[in-house]
């Protein structure tokens, strides 16, 4: 579904992605593990065309988007929902208006239909009572859930999660993980989750990949990561327990 082929990206003189190759398969939940600053978010931004590779190719459903303009990217991005690390809600809009924004901009819905679509996803993420609240008054967990609601309101085929549990307490983290699983089961979406939360990775991932020094160090099913003797992976996995 998504293919990164020997992608190289240098930012501020530092090579963040160094010939990274990775394939995301349809219907799976791929978890990308790695320490802070290893380029996980940069990799995610390449998948959706927010960043262009210096070398290498990015393909989405067989379409090479590496050199696409913003206009050419529009139909490609229609496939995506993107949950940003800090939720990236528009602070001038209420939760309802944030979630309604992509519908208002792209779909010709009447008031009732729009309200129904927004309330449906807000109910799914457990925010039906917070629709008139402004982002500034929401807790971290509520912001993430509102961001998730906005990401899925147009029923995307692929959802990208950038550190969905970062900065949240274990109870809220588990709630977010359950939401990711619920969305996968209900909406049959392909998911890519970037995280350094190892417990969360094992809960939601059908396949795991570890990013190190700009490349995939190891990839495989969660079981492989539990049993491998690879020192780097062991240090990461055991450190998270």
């Amino acid at each position, binding site marked *: 579904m998504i293919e990164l082929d020997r992608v190289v990206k240098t930012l501020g003189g530092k090579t963040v992605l160094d010939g990274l190759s990775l394939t995301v398969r349809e219907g799976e939940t791929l978890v990308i593990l790695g320490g802070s600053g290893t380029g996980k978010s940069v990799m995610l*931004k390449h998948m*959706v065309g*927010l960043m262009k590779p210096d070398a290498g190719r990015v393909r989405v459903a067989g379409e090479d988007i590496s050199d696409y303009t*913003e206009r050419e*990217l*529009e139909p490609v*991005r*229609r496939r*995506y929902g*993107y949950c*940003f*690390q*800090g939720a*990236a*809600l*528009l*602070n001038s809009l209420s939760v309802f208006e944030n979630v309604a*924004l*992509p519908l208002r*901009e*792209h779909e010709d819905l009447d008031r009732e239909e729009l309200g129904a679509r927004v309330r449906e996803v807000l109910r799914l993420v457990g925010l039906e009572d917070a629709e008139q609240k402004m982002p500034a008054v929401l807790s971290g967990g509520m912001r993430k859930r509102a961001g998730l609601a*906005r990401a899925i309101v147009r029923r995307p085929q692929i959802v990208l999660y950038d550190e969905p549990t970062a900065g949240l307490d274990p109870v809220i983290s588990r709630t977010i993980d359950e939401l990711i699983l619920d969305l996968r089961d209900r909406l049959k979406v392909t998911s890519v989750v970037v995280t350094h939360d190892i417990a969360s990775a094992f809960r939601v991932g059908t396949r795991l990949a570890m990013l190190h020094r700009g490349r995939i160090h190891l990839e495989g099913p969660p079981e492989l990561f539990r049993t491998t003797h690879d020192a780097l992976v062991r240090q990461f996995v055991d450190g998270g327990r």
Partner: protein
Amino acid sequence: MPEGSSRVLDWVCRHCGGAGYTLSLLGAAVGQLPAVARKRGEIVRQLDRAVFGSLFVTFIVALFTGMILALQAGIELSRWGQESSVGLLVSASMVREMGPVMTAFILAGLVGSTMAAELGTMRVSEEIDALQVMSINPVRYLVMPRVLALALACPILTVFVDVIGVAGGAVVARSLLGVDYQTYFDKARDVLAVRDIAGGLLKAFVFGVTIATIGCSQGLRAENGAEGVGQATMRAVVMAFVYILIFDYLVAWMLY
């Protein structure tokens, strides 16, 4: 290459690149004008913020500018027994120069800086990225309404500043120079041609577009968190001041 020269070259390259980006942003905003009807709510909101948010400050500045002009001009003119012409000087100065320029300076400080800070915060908190991922063009959604709103707000406020400034001058002319209102306003009206009023409004329009485009451009290019937003805001104000004066000269040169 010596380090000093390299720094200068680097500064020139960055400045030229920034100017190029700002110009292309203006072009992109103009290209989004067909979406005006869909964005009318946001345009009205921005216009409201710019006009009513600046009204009190522009009133004070306009009043005292007119009063100072009348006082200084009156002192000189009274030496030659020509104090009755003070209305002529105040109105010509206000409508041709002081009105548009003072209004633009106020809007650059109040609104241009707000635009840079607002969009800069949106950039560093990934809100602009979020718009792009949702296939919402940030130029259509954020920039075009702001540029259009300020292109309208600046001439509106300039008319207000002109009127208050000339009125402030009249109060000083009457109370300190003994020039009655009838004489003052007759002289003020006599000196003004349609070209002066249209020229002042044209300047205001150009300044409005300039302030908003620079504010948005600086905000959209902000990076490095809160510090970067602060830098972008400062640059937006300083650059707007510089370009206001440059365009003021160019428009005056074209008109007169």
